[in-house]
């Protein structure tokens, strides 16, 4: 597993997402209310660019007509067929055992840690005084 520095924190404010390719794999990194999530940008169903879909909440119900809406902004809905995936786990709602999108840990690290390595900062110049978004891949 390699760790990849993908952006200074300031470039990924809450509500934003960044698409990139790491080792040939399409990855998307999300900032949801200050929390960072990484997903493979490929739907396990038919290969759509999953992470271009809207981030919605999770609708559930214990009684018909009564809807509980939770996990606001934490469910990615595939733009092709509407399948829902939990961005924390990558699990699909409709068939969690068979369909799951690869989820990658994303952390924020201070530049002081990063300049020591062994992190990979392929395209970024890392400065000691900033914080960076790091993906484990």
């Amino acid at each position: 597993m390699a760790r990849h520095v993908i952006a200074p924190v300031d470039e990924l404010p809450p509500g934003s997402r960044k698409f990139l390719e790491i080792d040939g794999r399409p990855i998307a990194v999300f900032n949801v209310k200050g929390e960072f999530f990484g997903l493979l940008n490929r739907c396990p169903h038919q290969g759509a660019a999953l992470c271009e879909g809207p981030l919605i909440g999770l609708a559930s119900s214990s009684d018909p007509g009564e809807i509980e809406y939770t996990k606001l902004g934490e469910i990615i809905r595939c733009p092709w067929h509407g399948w829902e995936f939990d961005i924390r786990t990558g699990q699909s709602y409709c068939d969690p055992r068979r369909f799951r999108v690869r989820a990658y840990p994303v952390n924020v690290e201070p530049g002081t840690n990063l300049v020591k390595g062994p992190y990979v900062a392929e395209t970024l110049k890392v400065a000691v005084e900033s914080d960076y978004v790091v993906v484990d891949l």
Partner: protein
Amino acid sequence: MTSPIAGGVDCDLHPAVPHLTSLLPYMNDYWRDQVTTRGMTDLISQSYPVNSPISSRPDWRPVKGKPGSDIADLQRQALDRFGTAYGICNPLYGVQMVFSEDMANAFCRALNDWLAKEWLDKDERLRGSIVIPVQSIEKAVAEIERCAADKRFVQVLMLVMGDMPLGKRHYWPIYAAAERFGLPIGIHAGSAYHNPPTSVGWGSYHIEDYVAQAQAFQTQLTSLIVEGVFARHPNLKMVMLESGFTWLPPFLWRLHKFWRGVRMETPWVDRAPLEIVRSNIRFSLQPVDAPPESDTLNRLFDHMQSDELILFSTDYPHWQFDGDEVLPKGLSPDLVRKIMIDNPHATYPRLTVKEMTP
């Protein structure tokens, strides 16, 4: 052919009301006079025109009178012939067609009392379905409560084509009452003719009505599942009667596919539709719309992923098969036993209740 085994449960028998006047003894004075003075004679819908081949097997057609109107014929041709232990009577009489809910209520009560007296009292093997005036929920529930006291009533009967999709919450008090009394809801082919019998308008020919029954069942299954009837009533069983079942796997492929994409519109559907069908929905055997090759049929059963969905039925006196070939070719002995005995008993808990009369 596959031989039937003795002790089976025939889940779809149709005793015929000879004439509306046959119900007069079971109406109150007011309705008896109304029927008589208005000159009402019979309630025949176009679902089963008397002379249509589907309405009666030729060798079951009596010399005079309606097919299925003589209990001796039904005993000999259906019960004795197939060694039936229990036979469930589903009267198809046009009481659902009338638009007055008060008249419908009077006719339903008369029909249910007629069934108890003229059929259930005369053969211990017979069980009945409660016909309800669906247009009035209150009256329908009251009729279920009234008839459920007689344990020989084992089911509530509705038509697949009524006024509205059956999943609508409007109907739920009916389902609550049925669940409370351990009565499955039987949904039988046929229309109240309050809507066109196809979803695209009125056709020209009887075959269009009859074939369209299968589409109506699919639409109703979708409605029942997505409206959440089985989320609210997890113990309620519904039995599709004379629905055909060979359409089930491809229908479920389609429903499942779209559920995966838009299930957030109906989040109470928290299981795949196939799982809901497996736990709550059953189908009567006849008609079998498959080609006669046993491989084809067994592949279909594989697709259904369950051997618990089908319940034995002759659909007497309707013409769905000839001779004794009530079971399609190629069924394993294990599956025959499930279809004829185990599955019906698991579906109708009141079949074997001892105390028989209220």
